[in-house]
C-alpha cells in the first residue's frame, strides 16, 4: 500500500500548516504551494494523486485559474476547492472547471478526508463507493484507491490476483484484501485495458502474472494465492491463440 501524494495550494501559512499537519497525521504525503507559479512548477516536477485548491490566493481567484490550467493540459488529476469564499460569482466560475467537490471553511478534519474521498470517486466516476462503505474501492487504470484507518491509500493494480463478478459489480481479490468495485466486469476490463488481465471465464478476469498452474483438461487455473479459477472452453481457445508459447 502506498500513501497518496497531495498538493495543497494555500496562501495563508497558518492554515497551510494546519492542513499539512493534519493530512500527514492521516498518512497523506503533502506538498504545499503558496502561489500559482509555485504550484505549476511542482505539478510539472512531481506526480500528485490530488490537488487541494484555495480559491482566493493573495486576493486573486488563482485557485480557479490553476483549475482551468489543469483541465486545459488534461493532466487527469482530481482536484477540489477548499475555500471560505461564499460569493456566488466565484462559485459559478469555479463550477465551470468541474471540480470533484467543494469544501467550505470552517471545516473539520473528518470533512476534509470525506471530501478527498468524494473527489476520487467523482473523478473516476464511481460515486458513493469510498465514502459510503470501507469495503468499496475506486479503480483507476494504474491504482486501486482504498480506505485504510480513516485515510485513503492506493494499491498498484499489479497486486491484484483476479477480479470476480459479484452481482451487478465486481469483487477485486488482492494480497491486501478484497474490495468491491462499483463497475461491471466489462467496464473494469475497459478501464484497465491491460493485457496482463485476461478473461478466462465469463465471471473472471485473471492477472496472468499471478498464475501458478493451468490444468487445461480440468479447465482450472491455480493462482499464487492458491485460488482456483474455472477456465471456460470459450476463453481457453482465445487464451491459447494469444499465447504462442503454449502451442
Amino acid at each position, binding site marked *: 500500500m502506498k500513501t497518496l501524494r497531495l498538493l495543497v495550494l494555500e496562501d495563508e501559512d497558518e492554515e497551510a500548516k494546519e492542513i499539512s499537519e493534519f493530512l500527514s497525521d492521516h498518512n497523506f504525503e503533502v506538498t504545499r504551494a503558496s502561489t500559482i507559479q509555485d504550484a505549476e512548477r511542482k505539478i510539472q516536477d512531481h506526480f500528485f494523486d490530488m490537488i487541494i485548491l484555495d480559491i482566493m490566493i493573495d486576493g486573486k481567484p488563482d485557485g480557479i485559474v490553476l483549475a482551468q490550467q489543469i483541465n486545459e493540459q488534461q493532466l487527469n488529476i482530481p482536484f477540489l476547492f477548499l475555500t471560505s469564499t*461564499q*460569493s*456566488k460569482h466565484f*462559485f459559478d466560475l469555479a*463550477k465551470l472547471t468541474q471540480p470533484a467537490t*467543494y469544501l*467550505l471553511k470552517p471545516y*473539520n478534519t*473528518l*470533512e476534509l478526508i*470525506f471530501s478527498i474521498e*468524494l473527489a476520487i470517486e467523482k473523478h473516476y466516476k464511481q*460515486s*458513493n463507493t469510498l*465514502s*459510503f*462503505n470501507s469495503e468499496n474501492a475506486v479503480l483507476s487504470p494504474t491504482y486501486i484507491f482504498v480506505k485504510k484507518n480513516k485515510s485513503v491509500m492506493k494499491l498498484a493494480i499489479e497486486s491484484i490476483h483476479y477480479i470476480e463478478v459479484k452481482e451487478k459489480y465486481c469483487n477485486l481479490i488482492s494480497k491486501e484484501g478484497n474490495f468491491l468495485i462499483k463497475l461491471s466486469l466489462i467496464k473494469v476490463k475497459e478501464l484497465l485495458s491491460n493485457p496482463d488481465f485476461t478473461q478466462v471465464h465469463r465471471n473472471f478476469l485473471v492477472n496472468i502474472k499471478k498464475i501458478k498452474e493451468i490444468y487445461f483438461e480440468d479447465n482450472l487455473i491455480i493462482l499464487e494465492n492458491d485460488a482456483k479459477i474455472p477456465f471456460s472452453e470459450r476463453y481457453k481457445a482465445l487464451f491459447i491463440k494469444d499465447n504462442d508459447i503454449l502451442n
Partner: protein
Amino acid sequence: MSKWLIIWCILFGYTSTYSQSQKTGQIGLFYDHMDQYCKEKVVTTDFCKAVDFHRSRKRDSCYIYAGRALEIVKNQEQQDILHYIQGVSAIKKKLYTKALQNMNSISEDFKFSGLKNHKLGEIHLVLENYDQSIQYYKKWLDQHIGTKDEVFLKTAYHNLGVSYLHKKEFDTTEKYFSKELALIKEKDTFFVIVTKMELANAYYSQYRDEEAIALFKESYRLATLFHDIELKQNTAKNMAVVEKNRKRYQESVAYYIEYGKWKDSIWNRDKIWELTEKDKQLAIAQKEQEIQLQDEKIKRQKTQRNGLIIGSSLLLLFIGILGYFYKLLIGKKKLITEQKEQLDIANTTKDYLFSVVSHDLRSPVNALKRQHEKLLDHIAEKDLLGIKKTTDTAITLTESTSHLLNNVLHWSLEQSEQLFFEPETYPLKPILEHVISDYEYLATTKDIILNTTLDASILATVDKESLKIVLRNILDNAIKYTKNKGKITITSGNHATDKCYIEIKDTGAGIPPEILAKINSLHDITTDKIDRSKGVGLGLLLCHTLIKKNNGQILFDSEPGKGTTIKIVLPKGID
C-alpha cells in the same frame, strides 16, 4: 286634267297564297321536283339551302345561296331552277332588272316554263312594258287552258286587265276583270273590293261614269265593312276624286277627310309600329341601363364588400396589435409588481438583519468586552483560576457570536439568492458524523451524552453545505437548552421508499406549545411576520428555509420539561 288618279295595281304574288295550292298546283309539283334533287343528294348543299330559304321565304338568304349555287352547279335544269328561285327573290326585293335577267337566263326546255312566263309577265308589268306583260300572260294562258290553279289564273286575269287598263284598251280590261271577278268567290272580300275598284277605274276611264260610280261606291261600301285600312283609304280617295270630278265638293271633302283619316291611321299604324319598335328599343335601352345600373350596383357592392373586408381585417390587425401591446404592458406591469415584491422582501430582510445585528450582536460583543476587562483585572491580580474561567466564558461567547454571524451570512445569502446550492447524492451517515463530531467536545463539557444510531446504507440527495447549516443550528439549540447530564439522541433511517429521516431528540427544557405552533408554521412564514420578541430566532427560520429548498420537511415536537424532538425528512438518493 287626268280623270283618274289611282291605278290600283296589285301584283298578286302567288307566294301569299301558295300554301293553298302547294299540294295540287304547278308550284307544288315544282317543290316536289326540287325536293327530289335534295333527297337524292346529287346537288350541293347550297342548292338545297337556297331551296329551303325560298320555301321559307327568306329572300335575302335565298338570293345569296342561289347565287353561290349557280357558280357551282353545271346541270342545265338545276341552273334553271336556281335562276328561277333567285329571280323570285329578286322580285320580292324589287330588283326587277336582275329578276328579268334571271328569268331570261332560264332555258327554253325548262320544265316549268309556265311559272317562268307568269313571272315574266309580272316583271314586265312592273317595268311598265305592258305589251310584253300581256304577251307573257297570254302565253301562260295558252299553256294552261282549263287550269284549276285559280290563284295563278286570277293573277293572270288581273294583271292582264291592269295592263290593258294602262294601254287604255278598256274593253279588254273590262273583259279580263269580269273574268277575274267571276273567279273570285264571294267570301274573298279583299279581291272583290280590289277587282271592283279596278273595274270601276276601267269604266271611269271610258267615261261610263254611272257604272263606274256605282262600282266605286260598292267597293267603298264593302271596304268600310272590311278590315283592310289601305283598301278603306284607297276607296275613300277614289270616291273623293270621283265626287270632286262631279263637282260635289262637299262630299269630296268628306271623302278626303276620311281618306286623310285612314291615311293617318295607316300612318298611325306605322307610327304605332314604329313607336312600339321605339318603345321596344327604349325598353331594351332601359333594360340595358338597368343592367348597367345593376352591374354598377354589383360593382359598388363588390367594392363595398372588399372595403368592408379590408376594413375589418385592418381593424382585427389593429385590435391584435393593441392586444399585443396590452399584453406587453401587462407583462411589464407584472414584472414591475414582481420586482416590487422582491424589493419588499429584500427590504424586510435588510430590516430584519439590522435588527438582528443591533439586538443579538451588540449584547454578546459588549459581554465579550466586559470579559476582557475582567481578564485584565485577573491578570493584575495574578488570579490564574479566574483567568481560566473568564477565558472559557469568552470562548463560549465568541462561539455563539460566530454561530450567529454565520447564520446572518447564510440567511442574507439565501435571501439574495447568492447561496451556492447544488444538490447531489451523498451517503448520509458521514455527513451526520462530521457535524456531530464538532459538538462532541461541547457535549462532554456539559456532561451531555450524545447517542447516535445511524443507518449506513442511506443515500440522500441534498445540498451538503446547507444540510450542515441546519444540523449545526439544531444541535446548537439542543445542547444550549439541555441541562447538564442530559441526553441527545440522533437517529437516521428510512422514512418511506423515497424518503429518509434524521431525528434529533433531546431531554431539554422543551418548547411551550404556543411557540411550538409558531415554529411549525414557519415553513410558510416570511421575515416581516416574525415577531422577534416571541423568541423565534433566525436559526430556526434558516432551518425551515433550507430544508424546504432541499425538498424536505422539518417537524418540531416538544413536551415542556421533557424535551424536544426534531424530525427532518429528506429525499433519498438513488445509487
